[in-house]
């Protein structure tokens, strides 16, 4: 008899380990690095985030003269949120989105 059979039978009669994802959502841990968001009111235009970004994903928006993040390049390292002196950039818990040339 195969040695794993008891484990197989045990797993057959228990509830699934996976969650039904789009319907049931798992609670994210505190400090999760999701999509970065910019609070344009708080921005003091010091441009530290542009220098800190390893992927050159942050550029200056011509209209509002504030930084904007190209999410197609962003790697969610959180360096910009760390260097921001006024906490204008924060890492949100949002991870469901799609991007082509989408900027925040």
């Amino acid at each position, binding site marked *: 008899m195969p040695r794993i059979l008891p*484990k197989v039978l045990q*797993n057959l009669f228990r509830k699934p380990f996976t969650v039904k994802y789009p319907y049931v959502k798992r609670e994210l*841990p505190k400090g*999760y690095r999701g999509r970065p968001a910019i609070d344009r009111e708080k921005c003091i235009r010091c441009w530290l985030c542009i220098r*800190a970004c390893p992927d050159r994903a942050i550029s200056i928006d011509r209209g509002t003269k504030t930084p904007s993040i190209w999410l197609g390049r962003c*790697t969610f390292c959180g360096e910009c949120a760390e260097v921001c002196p006024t906490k204008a950039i924060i890492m949100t818990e949002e991870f469901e989105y799609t991007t082509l040339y989408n900027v925040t």
Partner: protein
Amino acid sequence: MTFVLPVGPQHPSLKEPEFFRFEVKGEEIVDVDIRLGYAHRGIEEAFSRRNYKHNVYLAERICGICNVVHSTTYCQTIEQLAGIEPPERAKYIRTIIMELERIHSHLLWLGVAAHQIGFDTLFMLAWRDREEVMDMRELISGGRVHSATNTIGGVRRNVKLEHIPEMLRRLDKLEKSTGYYADLWGSDRTILARCSKVGVLSKDDAVKFCAVGPVARASNLKLDIRRNDPYGTYEALSFDVVTESEGDVWARGTVRLREILESIRIVRQALHELPSGPLRVPVELKIPPNETLERTEAPRGELVYYARSNGTETPERIRVRTPTYGNFASMKSMFIGGTVAEIPIVMWSIDPCFGCNDRATILDARTGKVSVVNFKQLKRWRR
């Protein structure tokens, strides 16, 4: 009369591109030729175009599975280059995350190895338990895979006091299930039939072909950088270097499974002894001309980083030698004399990571000629 059996570059037993040319006589393999370079991404050149701090994230992207060990080695190299000493607490946090990475890499190996020999139940179970490690890493670093925790001169994120009971609970669960898998790996008839005495690498061959990591340890070579050339906190922590004497696929699996148990021990100790103090020290990015070499023990074996600075904020040259590259030479002696059906599991037994491996080689595989292309030529072709 021999026939040539090409395996790859598409899906040679795993979903990464590499070309293997087997010469077979009936069922028996008589010769093997390996051609590398299909996943070349030019990362070493990219290193010398960014500053030291941005390169931490580039080093992380060399390999997805072993990203923390890449960024830790890179940070240790640059710290050595600039003469910075990271704080004790940062070293402990690095150790915790690196060992969690070793656990998840070995569980991933176990799952895919079980899948290769047609044992899908074990595949599902191993990958289910791997989730515990991924959740732990998400708890500490805020990302399941890419931790982004390391930085030059320390770490960016702290292991908080409230994380520790949760982690210890998960480690207990993991230890129990890994013990079960180790027991199963040593006694199940399917596994023994498919893995025992397959792809044997003798101790002499392992020395001759410079095998590294679990492959060398399965051939009874006591070779572990954590013990032989201690870095970080490994001198202060107690653990055993696991060795097996058989040198076959089964021994490589046993070494990895027993290493998971050792890693769990290390994480527990590190969590227990976690010293208080600062997380990082301030760093001056302009590093005077200097060169250095640093090696660490990645889940797959010895990882070497070489760095040369030239007084500016960008390095002049970074060279990476990944463990998979070190193990390719010993593959030939594993394959010869075996059968065609053994190819996938023997190939997987060194835990190859071609994404890691193909950074530096430029080969012209179309004509069968191996030639080195210089940058000028590359530029001309681009147009």
